[in-house]
């Protein structure tokens, strides 16, 4: 037999001319050995046809010219995040990510760390040469104390730049990883151990048993500025004090954890609302209306908007509802924008409402001047209203809180405004759709439906008594 590389393409099409079967790596680079080990293990496990390989940015960017399987190239640092995504979309396929130490240890550390913590189902090969190799040998998080790089010409100063990042040791603190091992490709004995660990990680991935991580110490003779043989010897000497080799964890004999299955639920079951079976219709003759509801958090501003939006939905209108509120659950200012249209709505934001409902002073001050000419401002009559209203806008003080109080539901000021709008003809819907939407919004507290209906009616009556209908 002839021992030769397997799992790799026959030709590496990147280069024309002679040596189309040579890699782009420097002479003596550890990446080349790792490439052969991964290819060989993939071939031995017969997993090339199914596998997706996620390549990094760095010296190994061109790995897609070599491994004979499916490929995706990730942006710098993101190979783990991309592999996470693919593992969710193709849960049965072997996913293999490959990252260097600048890529994984610095910009991409959080991606790799969170993937490890979630136990995302892919094999991650982490090639550590203790510097940024492709860009010219700058300091990486993995650079050793005192190590000279192009950005640490006097040696890495741990006071200024911290300590070398030991990724295996960090991952070892996490619950989820199935397999963690650190190996090296500096000499024959180490290469043979690396071969075993790489194959093990790929086998775990073939069986979809979870997150398997192999850190591979890999000499970079180019940036060590040494002859490859001497560089490999020196590399072992320098690196292994900080990065001891060995297996940290192997839980591959345990069955793979299976996530709980998610039952199918309808929109109605999930939200307690939703109008199934209603189709939205295009109606160019319908004039788009923009509503801004505002007040402070806790006054039911957002639910007032939702009731209007729900009523619109049940009439087959296009509708958008967009809330805006501060960090406070209660007491901060809150507003929501509702647009009802006869065609698709471009943006859910509103600069010039047709109708403004202001349930407190600050919102009235804030939004009054934005109301469109010909528009209406409805505001709580108990607040100060000595602000100037824009010309051509009808500003109506409305005693929402006293109507709510009189009907025994002090918190139903929002319902009072709903009734007032309905009474004034500001809501282009059938009244039944409005009251149905109101009842629906209270379905979690059915005892409140009746009193709210009374508030709604009382508000309408206030309008007809005052002849405020528009």
């Amino acid at each position, binding site marked *: 037999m002839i021992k030769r*590389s397997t799992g*790799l393409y026959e030709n590496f099409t990147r280069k024309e001319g002679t040596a189309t*079967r040579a890699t782009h790596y420097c002479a003596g680079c550890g990446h080349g050995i790792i490439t052969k080990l991964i290819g060989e293990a993939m071939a031995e496990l017969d997993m090339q046809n199914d596998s997706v390989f996620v390549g990094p940015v760095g010296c190994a960017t061109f790995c897609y010219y070599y491994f004979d399987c499916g490929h995706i190239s990730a942006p710098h640092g993101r190979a783990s995040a991309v592999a996470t995504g693919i593992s969710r979309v193709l849960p049965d396929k072997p996913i293999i990510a490959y990252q260097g130490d600048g890529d994984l240890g610095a910009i991409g550390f959080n991606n790799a760390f969170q993937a490890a913590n979630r136990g995302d189902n892919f094999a991650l090969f982490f090639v550590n040469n203790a510097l940024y190799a492709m860009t010219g040998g700058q300091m990486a998080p993995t650079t050793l104390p005192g190590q000279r790089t192009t950005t640490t010409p006097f040696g890495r100063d741990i006071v200024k730049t911290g300590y070398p990042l030991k990724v295996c040791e960090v991952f070892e603190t996490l619950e989820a990883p199935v397999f963690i091992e650190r190996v090296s490709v500096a000499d024959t004995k180490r290469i043979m151990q690396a071969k075993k660990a790489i194959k093990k990680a790929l086998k775990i991935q073939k069986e979809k048993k979870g997150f398997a991580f192999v850190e591979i110490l890999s000499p970079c003779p180019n940036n060590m500025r040494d002859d490859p043989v001497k560089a490999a010897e020196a590399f072992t000497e320098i690196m292994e004090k900080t990065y001891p080799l060995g297996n940290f964890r192997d839980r591959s004999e345990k069955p793979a954890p299976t996530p709980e299955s998610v039952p199918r639920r309808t929109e109605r079951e999930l939200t307690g609302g939703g109008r199934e079976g209603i189709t939205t219709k295009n109606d160019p003759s319908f004039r788009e209306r923009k509503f801004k509801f505002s007040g402070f958090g806790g006054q039911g501003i957002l639910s007032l908007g939702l009731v209007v939006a729900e009523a619109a939905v049940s009439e087959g209108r296009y509708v958008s509802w967009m809330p805006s509120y501060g960090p406070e659950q209660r007491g901060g200012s809150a507003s929501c924008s509702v647009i009802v249209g006869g065609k698709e709505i471009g943006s859910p934001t509103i600069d010039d409402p047709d109708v403004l409902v202001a349930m407190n002073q600050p919102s009235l001050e804030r939004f009054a001047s934005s109301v469109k000419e010909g528009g209406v401002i409805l505001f709580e009559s108990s607040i100060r209203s000595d602000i100037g209203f824009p010309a051509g806008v009808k500003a109506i003080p409305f005693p929402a809180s006293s109507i709510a109080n009189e009907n025994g539901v002090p918190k139903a000021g929002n319902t009072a405004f709903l009734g007032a709008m309905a009474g004034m003809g500001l809501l282009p819907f059938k009244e039944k759709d409005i009251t149905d939407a109101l009842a629906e919004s209270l379905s979690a507290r059915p005892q409140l439906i009746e009193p709210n209906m009374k508030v709604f009616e009382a508000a309408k009556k206030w309008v007809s008594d005052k002849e405020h209908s528009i």
Partner: protein
Amino acid sequence: MEDKPYPIISEDECKGCGRCIAACPKKVLRSSGSVNNRGYIYAKYSGEGCTGCFICYYNCPEPYAVEVYRPDSEAD
């Protein structure tokens, strides 16, 4: 002729890094002293003494620079 193991070094793929030479337990690999098409001084088998251990293969960073023939296994 006796069927013995031997390494096959592909002149043009070899980058002359010397890792196979340093690793070969039988010390039967050496530098050819000649430059290949791409400017690397490639490695060469001395012609005698290879045991077919594959160590040169595993140490070589170039996937197609060195292959090893070993007669004892099934024919390839």
